[in-house]
């Protein structure tokens, strides 16, 4: 039986790997990869038994005071409950596999050790986030992950687009993080504690006591925390950064922008689900944001030509699905979809990565007929796509079904319809991708594709097995064990599985696949025709609903113009003022100088000359002859006699 305290080692090992790689990276060169992979595998071997213990129903939690804020101690610690254990389980496995894959993908890169340092740092951050037991630690690891995503997106910083993408990603997630920070601080001011378990207890009491504490304040806190999720999980308004994040190397995309980091946002909502349950009108907002994101992302993905962009948009739409699930207070459904999506989305990205690695081309219009050249990659890619589309035996079907069920059961008919349409679109663009890249004739003869080495294909197969297997705990075969496991967390409504929902989702998936096959294998011209007929929609989708232009015009441009205006304002007014004061002081000093020179000195000189003048008169008296003085004295006496004594 593994004691719980070793769980702290799980985030610590990747951090040590990061430190070593960073400091001795130059010296380690290709050996850096081994170090980080070893760290993550050891972390994995430590974490899985603990998770297994938690699966058995145990619950571990421990905390220590980190620092004293005046009298109130600030306690940091870890908690191992169903939510965190499942995430930990997923992250360690997927992380390790991706790092193994990255060893092959990044082979020969000059900054090899630095890549693995950043990845290890990201792993340690993700692991701390998953096991943290209070908002502050959660937020710290949240910020480190944002940093790692910036560093890794901008890994090829000599490419201008990579640097811009990194910067864009960092900024947009930053907007969300600010909201998240303010949110949990308001929460702290409201309920006085940052600890999740204490919060859950408070929320439970409030739930029973009926009247929640400060309804308004809590709802505000909840909304702001949800902003953090929007930023981090690339939801509707702040999703623009994820497609551009594809500039980074593919394992990064796989690890960060598919499986883990983006999932953190959903995990945040799940972690503070008790708060969201209490607050009356926040969940509908979540739902709306989720559905919009899902539909909008899928719609854009339809017309994309870059292999990684299509996957990015599909990630955004799946995240939309998770958020909608949480919005519909389907905690179990959301988290289940989170876990399953991590596996097959990572696989998709890695497969795409090996395709790019092989063909050195990212545009699907130049690819074709790669199936024969890259069988392993192709087959794993097809398996993942099937899972994503939601074909029954695969994990994707189960998790998506759960979501659709929660939507349908909770009476949100519209939401159900949109989700269903989205599912159809998902299936369509995934298989459009498959048919365009792997089947048909190679459109660009210069491309000489070759299969990736074993170190890359092995993790592909591992993940393929994972994406098949991982679906079962939530499926009826295991009696919805996962949903019950999640119910221990927060009491939320349970829905009976309905066959109708399952049938609708399967039907949507099959229609999508078949339509894609028809268009792209047989009737390539139909695509062209539909594009011309629905040209507006086509251009809308092609240009990512003009969000970038929209943002740049209504946010960036105004800010720039504001900046320019401010600069201008500053240059003219402030500097003007400063210079003005300078000139004013100069002028005033000149005036003072003049006054000083002509009036004060003038006065002084005047007295000088006056005395000199008077002196020149009086000094005549000083003749030097003693007798003159005597005479003067005598005459003085006379005058005195005559005048004063009035003798005469």
């Amino acid at each position, binding site marked *: 039986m593994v004691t719980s305290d070793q769980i702290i080692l799980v985030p610590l090992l990747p951090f040590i790997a990061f430190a070593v790689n960073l400091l001795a990276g130059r010296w380690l060169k290709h050996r850096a990869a081994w170090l980080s992979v070893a760290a993550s595998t050891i972390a994995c071997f430590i974490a899985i038994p603990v998770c297994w213990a938690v699966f058995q129903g145990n619950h571990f939690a421990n905390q220590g005071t980190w620092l004293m804020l005046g009298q109130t101690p600030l306690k940091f610690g870890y908690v191992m409950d169903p939510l965190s254990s499942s995430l930990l389980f997923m992250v360690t496995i997927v992380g390790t596999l991706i790092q193994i894959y990255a060893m092959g993908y990044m082979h020969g890169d000059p900054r090899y050790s630095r890549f693995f340092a950043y990845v290890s740092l990201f792993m340690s951050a993700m692991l701390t986030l998953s096991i943290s037991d209070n908002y502050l630690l959660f937020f710290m690891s949240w910020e480190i992950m944002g940093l790692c995503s910036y560093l890794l997106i901008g890994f090829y910083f000599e490419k201008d687009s990579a640097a811009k993408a990194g910067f864009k990603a960092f900024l947009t997630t930053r907007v969300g993080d600010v909201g998240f920070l303010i949110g949990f601080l308001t929460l702290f001011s409201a309920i006085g504690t940052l600890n999740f378990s204490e919060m859950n207890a408070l929320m439970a009491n409030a739930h029973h006591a009926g009247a929640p504490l400060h309804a308004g304040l809590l709802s505000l806190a909840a909304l702001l925390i949800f902003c953090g999720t929007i930023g981090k999980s690339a939801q509707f308004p702040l999703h623009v950064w994820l497609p551009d994040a594809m500039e980074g190397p593919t394992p990064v995309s796989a690890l960060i922008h598919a499986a883990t980091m983006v999932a953190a946002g959903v995990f945040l909502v799940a972690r503070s689900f008790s708060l969201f349950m209490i607050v009356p009108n926040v969940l509908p907002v979540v739902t709306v944001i989720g559905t919009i994101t899902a539909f909008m992302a899928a719609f854009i993905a339809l017309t994309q030509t870059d292999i990684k962009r299509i996957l990015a948009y599909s990630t955004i739409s799946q995240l939309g699905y998770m958020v909608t699930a949480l919005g519909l207070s389907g905690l179990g459904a959301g988290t289940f979809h989170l876990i399953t999506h991590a596996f097959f989305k990572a696989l998709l990205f890695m497969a795409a990565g090996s395709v790019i690695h092989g063909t050195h081309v990212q545009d699907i219009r130049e690819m074709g007929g790669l199936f024969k050249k890259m069988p392993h990659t192709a087959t794993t890619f097809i398996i993942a796509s099937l899972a994503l589309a939601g074909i029954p035996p695969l994990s994707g079907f189960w998790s998506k079904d759960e979501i659709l069920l929660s939507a349908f059961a909770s009476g949100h008919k519209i939401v159900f319809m949109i989700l269903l349409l989205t599912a159809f679109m998902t299936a369509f663009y995934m298989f459009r991708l498959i048919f365009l890249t792997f089947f048909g004739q190679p459109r660009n003869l210069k491309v000489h594709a070759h299969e990736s080495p074993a170190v890359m294909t092995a993790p592909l197969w591992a993940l393929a097995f994972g994406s098949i297997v991982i679906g079962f705990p939530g499926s009826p075969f295991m009696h919805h064990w996962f949903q019950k496991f999640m119910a221990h967390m927060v009491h939320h409504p349970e829905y009976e599985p309905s066959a109708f929902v399952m049938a609708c989702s399967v039907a949507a998936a099959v229609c999508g696949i078949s339509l894609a096959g028809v268009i792209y294998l047989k009737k390539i011209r139909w695509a062209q025709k539909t594009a011309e007929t629905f040209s507006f929609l086509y251009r809308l989708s092609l240009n990512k609903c003009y969000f970038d232009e929209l943002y740049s015009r209504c946010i960036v441009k105004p800010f720039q113009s504001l900046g320019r205006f401010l600069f201008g304002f500053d240059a003219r007014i402030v500097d003007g003022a400063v210079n003005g004061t300078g000139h004013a002081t100069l002028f005033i000093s000149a005036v003072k100088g003049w006054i000083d020179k002509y009036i004060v000195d003038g006065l002084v000189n005047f007295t000088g000359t006056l005395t000199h003048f008077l002196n020149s008169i009086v000094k005549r008296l000083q003749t030097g002859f003693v007798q003159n003085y005597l005479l003067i004295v005598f005459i003085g006496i*006379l005058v005195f006699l*005559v005048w004063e004594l009035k003798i*005469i």
Partner: protein
Amino acid sequence: MDMLSLIIKFGIYGTMALALIAAIAVVTLRNLFHSALCLAAVLIATAMIYAAFHADFLAAAQILLYVGAVMTLIIFAIMLTEQLGSKTIRQTNRQNLAALAGLLVFVVILGRVIFKTPWPVTEKALASKVTVMELGKAFMGPYVFPFEVISIILIAALLGAVVIAKKDR
């Protein structure tokens, strides 16, 4: 008004006139030695006037001190400093007219004062005669302090004069 007092009166007026003439001579004579001698004459005349006023000790003292000592000093000084050749140089400086005018006014004013004020002349005082014995007693009596101070002043003047006049080696 017997003849004797008449003679004495005329004697006194005569000495006064003599004194005045000598005084004017002192002031106006070009030759300094002559003016010094006229001063001696004035001093002796005043001594005689003192004698007339029965202040004989003072008369003797005056002659002894002034004529004997001070005159000698003055004459010594004249001899030591007088440039014989320069006798012809003008003796009075430029301001004699102004001084003269001032003096006339001065004399007129005080003259009026003298004649106007009723002097409290008392018969008893007129009759009194002061003998040397009384003077001695007064010196040793109420005026002993000034007497001692005068001795100190004299010593100081003596030393001072010697120091100043001594040719420093």
